[in-house]
């Protein structure tokens, strides 16, 4: 087997709440409590679970947005959780994050070309704006948008279009790992299908690895190679997609799968 691109070993992220008159004593919240998984190059691993299970905290810890309590995370063999912000900076290009809310994750004051162009300069991928604009135009076409939109501001776009721009902002840096936290959850079904197809196609074409965080088992089945089911900070079951969906071993996985309302197509035979 090939060396995994990302290996997470016994990751723990605990939070301490403050003591207050209303909520009582200080508490220790074990948001992520001993999570381990591997992502191979070019593979998609989904973390699925209900709200509060710690799936988003895993993603945020891996991008240094939260501090890990213990455990290790190796990216191409190097533990990056212990890196200082300066050491981690070069890795930020290679580990990118797509967020849920397309309305909050684009700066409303910046034109699209600034939003997409800035990271290119920061990471030294471009020297001139002409170069940057050429790259942006290609990228916008790849995500199904007219290159002319780079002169416009985020408020001029719908949710689905903004999420395409968010994906373009990530993919233009040619990352090796994309962490997508509920990337299609805020979209209407017909738009969600478009964006999901786009994400899957870009992933397959570029061979980027992906950690896909979602509560929606249908979406997870559509995009993943591997699935990890999280419950109360722990992974209760992890395996290849087919195994999880067709032969779930853990009681909680079965409960999740059974709870999904399904469309009954066709007449039932009486």
């Amino acid at each position: 087997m090939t060396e995994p691109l990302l290996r997470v070993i016994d990751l723990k992220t605990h939070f301490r709440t403050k003591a207050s008159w209303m909520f009582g004593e200080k508490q220790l919240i074990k948001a992520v409590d001993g999570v381990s998984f591997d992502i191979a190059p070019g593979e998609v691993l989904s973390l699925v679970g209900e709200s509060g299970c710690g799936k988003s905290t895993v993603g945020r810890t891996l991008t240094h947005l939260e501090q890990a309590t213990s455990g290790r995370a190796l990216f191409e063999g190097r533990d990056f959780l212990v890196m200082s912000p300066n050491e981690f900076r070069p890795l930020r290009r290679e580990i990118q994050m797509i967020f849920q809310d397309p309305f909050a994750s684009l700066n409303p004051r910046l034109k699209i070309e600034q939003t997409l162009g800035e990271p290119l300069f920061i990471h030294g991928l471009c020297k001139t704006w002409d170069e940057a604009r050429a790259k942006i135009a290609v990228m916008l076409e790849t995500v199904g948008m007219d290159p002319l939109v780079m002169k416009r501001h985020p408020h001029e776009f719908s949710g689905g279009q903004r999420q395409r721009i968010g994906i373009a902002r990530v993919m233009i840096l040619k990352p090796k790992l994309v962490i997508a936290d509920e990337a299609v959850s805020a979209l209407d079904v017909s738009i969600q299908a478009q964006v999901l197809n786009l994400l899957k196609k870009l992933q397959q074409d570029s061979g980027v690895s992906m950690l896909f965080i979602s509560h929606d088992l249908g979406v997870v089945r559509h995009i993943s190679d591997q699935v990890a089911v999280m419950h109360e900070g722990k992974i209760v079951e992890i395996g290849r997609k087919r195994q999880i969906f067709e032969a779930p071993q853990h009681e909680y996985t079965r409960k999740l799968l059974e709870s999904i309302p399904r469309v009954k197509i066709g007449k039932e035979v009486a």
Partner: protein
Amino acid sequence: MALLEVQDLEIAVRTKGKLLPVVQGVSFDVDDNETLGIVGESGCGKSLTALAIMGLLGGTTVRITGGNIRFDGMDLLTLSDGERRSIMGNRMAMIFQEPMTSLNPVYRIGDQIIENIRQHQKMTNAQARDRAVELLSLVRIPNPSERVDSFPHQMSGGQRQRVMIAMALSCDPKLLIADEPTTALDVTVQKEVLDLMADLQTRMGTAIVLISHDLGVISETCDKVAVMYRGRVVEAAATENLFAELAHPYTRGLLNSIPVVDSDVDWLEAIPGRVPTLEEELTGCAFHPRCALVTKLCATSVPQETEYKPGHSVRCHFSGKVAP
């Protein structure tokens, strides 16, 4: 005559001095013990329709511009404020999507339920409190006699939604309108809340209008379905008949867009384009820019409601045809 009859409902929004139609010619009816599902994507007008029935479209920006709504023989649109207040929360109640924001955070949940009961029924505070405890146990809140004194922040999202249901049921309504009641909840909790609603319906014979964007929820809980797109009902039928044969290309597209948990597909059949915004002027069928079956006719004439099969109506010039 059905319990709730909505006929040719028209709602318009005033922006920049222009009246833009947001709901056009919507008609449906719901009877006792029956659940009607209204399904559609954001902006299709499903929530506005619910608010119109509840009389919550006040002000000058959003207005009912036509049609009528009859409940139990009364014309809801011509009621005085006093008459309306005596019906709402009493014989007709509504559950909203956000259990976080629809409860008052500074009052105990019991007091909020008691307030509604005493508004409509002659009861002492103690009697109403007993009734509140009874309602909380009905919606399966554990330890109801203690939880009646809880504040909303002490409860989980699912529990809060149950409190909302308890409050809506406090005066034994004949009609319950639920606007995305489970959208903010986890799937396992969603199942519990939907089962609870179905159970209460069989016991009390309540009519329910369930508004949702989730075809799975609709398919599992409703007796009949109205599919809305951009302000119009484009397809309506009994649930079983609708899913047996989807007649409108939009309904088919919506169903094909959903990634399902029970099988694998390589690519989803997404509907191209997006729902047109209100400001965009449309001629003909509102779905024609995204439709695979589009012809010149679709761009110029609005399809009328036609009977596709008995009890199955559709608004499409080419209903039932499938794209080549």
